[in-house]
C-alpha cells in the first residue's frame, strides 16, 4: 500500500483516477488546487468544481484538501503566457502548469508531506520510467506531459491512462460518482469563454494595432491587437476577400504581421529550444506532434532541429513540439521563430 495524493479537478477523469487507487487499496487523499481566483459559479477552480471534487471524495470515503497555489500559478503560468503573447509567440500554458504546478509545486509538497506519489486524471501511461500515449487516441494527453523527467515519473500515477473515455465514464457511473456525466473541460482554464484571450491579455499587457503586409512588404490590412495573432491564422487579419492569406510571421518590434499564401506557410524544419527529455536524449528518426490535437508526422531530429519528412505547415513560435517514437513520448521542446 502506498500513500497517494490524488489531484482532483472536479472532472470525471480525476474522479475515476482517485477511485481506482482506492480500489487498489492505496491510502488516498484527494486535493483540489485553486490555481486561479475564480469567483464565479462555473469553470475551473470555481466553488462548483471544488464542491464536485469534495463530493466525489465523500463517496470514495477519502479526505479532501484544497490548496491555494494562486500566486505560483500567476507567476509561472499566466504571467509567462502573457509575456509570450507580447513577444508574438503562441504559448502552451497547460504544459507550463504541468511543469511548474502539478508536477512541480504539488509533487514537491506531496513528497514533503510523506506521500509516495501524486495521481492525476491525465490520459497517458507510465511504464518502467517511460511515458506513453493514453489508450484512448481521442483523449490522449501525452502532448502536455513531455516536460516530465525520471524523477517525476517515479512519483506519478495516471490511473485512467489505460482506459478509454467511455470506460472512464462507465466506471464513474458504476461507482455512482456525481461527476460521471460532466462534460469534458476545454481550452485554457484561465481564459473565460465570455472574455476570451483578449480580455485576459488586455488586462496584462498593452495590445498594439499592427500593420499587415504581404511578403513583398506592401500593406494589405490592419489588426487591432498584434499580440493576439498566431502564425497560421487566416481570419481577422483585415485583408478582405480574395485569395486565402495566412499569418506567416509576426514582428512585435515593427508591429507587423506578414501574410502569405498557404505555400508560404510551409516549412521543412523547426528549430527547438528548451529541450526536455523523459528518459534520455534522442536523435534520428522520430514522429513529431506540433500541437495538442495535431496528428504526428515523421521527422528526423538533428541536434535541436526537427526536419520533417514532408514539408509541414509552419509551427507557431512558442508552441511545443513533442517527439514520439511510436506511442512513446521521448521529450520535446519549444518552437523558435
Amino acid at each position, binding site marked *: 500500500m502506498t500513500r497517494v495524493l490524488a489531484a482532483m479537478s472536479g472532472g470525471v477523469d480525476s474522479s475515476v483516477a482517485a477511485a481506482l487507487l482506492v480500489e487498489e487499496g492505496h491510502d488516498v487523499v484527494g486535493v483540489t488546487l485553486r490555481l486561479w481566483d475564480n469567483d464565479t459559479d462555473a469553470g475551473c477552480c470555481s466553488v462548483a468544481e*471544488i*464542491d464536485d471534487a469534495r463530493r466525489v471524495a465523500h463517496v470514495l470515503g477519502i479526505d479532501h484538501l*484544497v490548496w*491555494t497555489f494562486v500566486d505560483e500559478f500567476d507567476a509561472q503560468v499566466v504571467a509567462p503566457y502573457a509575456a509570450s503573447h507580447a513577444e508574438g509567440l503562441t504559448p502552451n500554458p497547460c504544459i507550463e502548469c504541468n511543469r511548474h504546478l502539478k508536477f512541480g509545486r504539488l509533487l514537491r*509538497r506531496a513528497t*514533503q*508531506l510523506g506521500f509516495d506519489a501524486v495521481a492525476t486524471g491525465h490520459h497517458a501511461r507510465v511504464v518502467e520510467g517511460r511515458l506513453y500515449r493514453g489508450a484512448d487516441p481521442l483523449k490522449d494527453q501525452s502532448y502536455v506531459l513531455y516536460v516530465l523527467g525520471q524523477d517525476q515519473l517515479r512519483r506519478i500515477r495516471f490511473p485512467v491512462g489505460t482506459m478509454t473515455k467511455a470506460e472512464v465514464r462507465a466506471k464513474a457511473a458504476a461507482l455512482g460518482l456525481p461527476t460521471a456525466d460532466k462534460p469534458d473541460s476545454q481550452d485554457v482554464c484561465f481564459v473565460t469563454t465570455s472574455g476570451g484571450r483578449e480580455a485576459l491579455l488586455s488586462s496584462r499587457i498593452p495590445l498594439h494595432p499592427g500593420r499587415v503586409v504581404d511578403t513583398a512588404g506592401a500593406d494589405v490590412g490592419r489588426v487591432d491587437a498584434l499580440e493576439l495573432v498566431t502564425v497560421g491564422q487566416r481570419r481577422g487579419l483585415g485583408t478582405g476577400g480574395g485569395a486565402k492569406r495566412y499569418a506567416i510571421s509576426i514582428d512585435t518590434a515593427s508591429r507587423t504581421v506578414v501574410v502569405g499564401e498557404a505555400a508560404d506557410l510551409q516549412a521543412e524544419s523547426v528549430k527547438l529550444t528548451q529541450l526536455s527529455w523523459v528518459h534520455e536524449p534522442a536523435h534520428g528518426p522520430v514522429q513529431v506532434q506540433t500541437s495538442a490535437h495535431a496528428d504526428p508526422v515523421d521527422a528526423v531530429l538533428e541536434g535541436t532541429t526537427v526536419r520533417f519528412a514532408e514539408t509541414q505547415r509552419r509551427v507557431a513560435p512558442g508552441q511545443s513540439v513533442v517527439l514520439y517514437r511510436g506511442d512513446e513520448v521521448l521529450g520535446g521542446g519549444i518552437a523558435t521563430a
Partner: protein
Amino acid sequence: MRPEAVEAMLPYLSERFGNPSGAHAVSREARKALDDARDTVAQCLGARPAEVVFTGGGTEADNLAILGACAVRPGPTVCSAIEHHAVLHACDALGDNRLAPVGGDGVVDLDRLADLLDPSVSVVSVMLANNEVGTIEPLADVVALVRERAPEAVVHTDAVQGFPWLDVASAAASADLVAVSAHKCGGPKGVGALVVRQGVKVRPIIHGGGQERDRRSGTHNVAGIVAMAAAMRATVDERAAHVARVRALRDRLADGLLATVPGCTETGDRATKIAGNCHVSFDGVESESLLVLLDAAGVYASAGSACASGAVDPSHVLAAMGMARAQAIGSLRLSLGTSTTEADVDLALAAIPPAVERLRAS
C-alpha cells in the same frame, strides 16, 4: 456546544414546537421562552430587551447593522482594515467604504481613522476583538472620535469574537449597534443578535411578517435563540474564571512554541489580545502543509481565513498589519476555548515543533 445550550434547546425541537407569533397555548409557551431569552441576551450585552434583534447569525447581524443603518442615513462607510468579511464585504457592497488602517500590532490607528471621518459619514464599524489575531480594539476611543468628527454617524461593533472573552456590556457600551453570534460562545450555529440602541434606526434587510419589531422578519428560531441565551448566560457567569484559565493555557502554548521552535514569531501584543488566541508564524514553512501534518497528529489549527471553497485565503488581516506575504504564508492560528485542556496544549507542543522541523528539512 455547551451542554447548557444543548439542554435548553432540546424541548423546543420536540414537544415545545410552537411558533411564538401564534395565538394559542403552544405558541404562548414559545413566546415566553423567546421573551426570557431576550431578557437574558439583553442582560449579557448590557442592553434593554427591546434593543435586541435576533438574527440568523453574526454575519446577518453585521449586515443588518451596516446596510440597515446606511439605508436610513446614506453616506460613506468607514471600517477598520481587519474587520471580518461580514463587515468588510457589507461595507464594500455599499460602494463608498473608507478603510481605517491598523498598526503592526493589529490595533486601529486612531489618527488615521480621524482623517477618514467627516459629517457625511453614515456608519463606522470597528470590531471589538479580531477573529484571526485576537487583538482588542480601542472601541471607546473610536466612539469618542466619531461623536466628535461625525456626530450623526452610527457606530457599529462586531463583538462576535469578543463576547466570550470581554465584558461586552461595558466594553461596547458606547456603540450604537453590537453584533454577536451564538456559536462563538458555545451556542448553535446560525443564530445571532444585533443590539440596536434605543433611538438608533436600522432599515430591515429581510422583509416579511414584521417580527423583531419590524427589524427582522421571519419565524423565530426558538430553539436556537433559547440555546444562544443559555450559552451566553453561562459564558458571562463563568467568563472571569475561564479567561484566567485559558490565558494561562495560551501563554504556556505560545511561550512553549517560542522557546522550542526557532524562527517562530508571535503575532500581536498579548497585552492587547483576547485570552483564547494564539497566533504565530514560522519562517520558511507553509501553513497549508503544516495544517496537514497537524491534522494527522490530532491538532486542529487554522491559517488565514476560511473561504467558500474550503481553501485558505491569504489573510487580509495580516496584510493590513503589514506582515510580509512570505511570513503570512507561514502563519498558524491556534484557538483555545472553554473546553481546551492542559492535555490539548501538551499535544500541540509535542506535535508542532517536529512538524515545523520536518517541513523545513524537506
